[in-house]
């Protein structure tokens, strides 16, 4: 019998791969490339692209795109380094775009 109580999971919008847990959401008030995005402390089942320096709304950051490990769809990015003290808390955390993830109440 399947777990009646499972963790609330977010999946890739393109395939059914589980990429994040609801409990790992730090903030829902971020902006991604395509609209709203969430900041997660952890993600899973993903691969990371090459590091790039990008000028985001909050300043210069080194980020790496996060791809779904199965279908390789770009879901967001990972903050590798932040160059302003106030932004350091983001290092090591993940942005996943709202339009790229879904939650199934399965």
């Amino acid at each position: 019998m399947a777990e009646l109580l499972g963790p609330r999971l977010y999946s890739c919008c393109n395939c059914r791969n589980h990429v994040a847990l609801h409990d790992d959401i730090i903030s829902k008030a971020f902006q991604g490339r395509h609209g709203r995005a969430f900041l997660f402390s952890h993600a899973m089942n993903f691969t990371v692209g090459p590091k790039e320096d990008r000028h985001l709304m909050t300043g210069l950051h080194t980020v790496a795109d996060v791809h779904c490990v199965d279908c390789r769809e770009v879901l967001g990015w990972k903050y590798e380094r932040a160059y302003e003290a106030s932004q350091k808390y983001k290092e090591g955390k993940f942005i996943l775009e709202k339009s790229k993830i879904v939650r199934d109440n399965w």
Partner: protein
Amino acid sequence: MRGHAWINTILPDELIIEIFRCLDSKLSRDACSLVCKRWLKLERLSRTTLRIGATGSPELFVQLLARRFVNIRNVHIDERLAISLPLHSGRRRRNEVMCLPFNSHHATDNTGAEGALESSYLSDAGLIALSVGFPNLEKLSLIWCSNISSQGLTSLAEKCRFLKSLDLQGCYVGDQGVAAVGEFCKQLEDVNLRFCEGLTDTGLVELAHGCGKSLKTFGITACAKITDVSLEAVGMHCKYLESLSLDSEIIHNKGVLSVAQGCPLLKVLKLQCTNVTDEALVAVGSLCPSLELLALYSFQEFTDKGLRAIGVGCKKLKNLTLSDCYFLSDIGLDAVAAGCKGLTHLEVNGCHNIGSLGLESIGKSCHQLTELALLYCQKIVNSGLLGIGQSCKFLQALHLVDCSRIGDEAICGIAKGCRNLKKLHIRRCYEIGDAGIVAIGENCKFLTDLSLRFCDRVGDEGLIAIGKGCSLLQLNVSGCHRIGDAGLVAIARGCPQLSYLDVSVLENLGDMAMAELGEGCPLLKDIVLSHCHQITDAGLMHLMKRCTMLESCQMVYCPGITAAGVATVVSSCPSVKKILVEKWKVSERTKRRAGSVISYLCVDL
């Protein structure tokens, strides 16, 4: 003879009870209860297990259950499971007692000062009621029962002296309760403590001291305050310990060493302790010759030295799991292969320094291997698996994830050598293609469970061979985008026993395959069609026509499926228990008919 109930005239009570004991599902038991008053009474006498979730008034509920079922030996209370209203008979799960919500005024009547909300969770009073009602209790699980404390556990221990197995998870009980268990429950064999943050060494030492002579299985995971002191007590008192599971950051070599020294009969050891090193493994190797299962998890400091000690000392090892042990290499695995020739289960997960040589050694020495799992092993190449294929004739299950350097050559080798293969799961191994899968289809006649997920190079040709050669029960080809109708049609024609099918994320799969599946696989119980852009209502209808045993269906992101299709699924399948679909595809009428069966995809985050 017509009109005469022989069963009730001739068979005595004891015999009918014996027959009821052989019933394995709650549905069967319930059905028997409804036959007549005598059978109702006898069925209740034969019931031995209860599973309860969070109820409106647990103390009353327990008392009711104790009056009704007097021979209960096993009770599982899991308060993560919320009260569920009885809607569908289809919603009932096996072996579970349905939790009926009690009216709040019942609760306030008996619990006095406590508010109606407080009494939703099992309290000490409830635990006392449990112990009074079931004095012959043998197994007890209390999962996330946040309202119970030492007081309740102490009373339980005093009354239920025959307790054999205790599982506490997420319960904030204190040392006195656990110490009481040690004092009174002298037949206790299994103890499992998880997230018991109220426990310290004091309580555990008492438990080890009290139950030392009977304790066989012990698990301490995520209990923040337990240190080596407890393990030293286990080593001192629990001479007959057979199984130990540890997950802690504050346990060190000293604790594990004490157990190794004191428990020579140890058969199972699972360690997830970042501060435990080779010293402990060496001790286990030399002091625990009966070890049969060893599992080492996550980022520990173990090196080949420790593994070599295991290889030398634990000759009876059958089951080895190495997960995220970065420092282990082929040398260590080679040592295990040389020493543990009876190995049947091997899992290597994320150990980036283990390559093919270690696996070849396993192949050469461990001919009894039945299950092999290689996860995230980027270093392993074909020769490793070829070695397995040559000698491990009894291999039944092979599991490969993200092994990007393993290709068709290896799979062909496995196919030809391991003809008893029953289960093959491959995920994201991009070098494996049709050639390997065709070989499997031609050679592995006993294959029943096949899963090929996101393997870019596997196409219809492979599935056609599988359809010809294997009578599958479960198939998953999610994300193998080269697969289309031709492959699934072959499966439909060749695998009539198919009961689980996942064809999600297949852009080339269409209605023709659905129609054939409907014709060929009437025993389908679970199906996943999500992200298939070419499947439409028509295909769905053909599928549902004959698959009347369907229990679950996932079909999100299928633009060709509309509200009509969803309605068809609901109306054609009387046994359906779960449907996953977009909310806007469910009409009001379907909602009324199906209600709790439908789960919605949540895109509006």
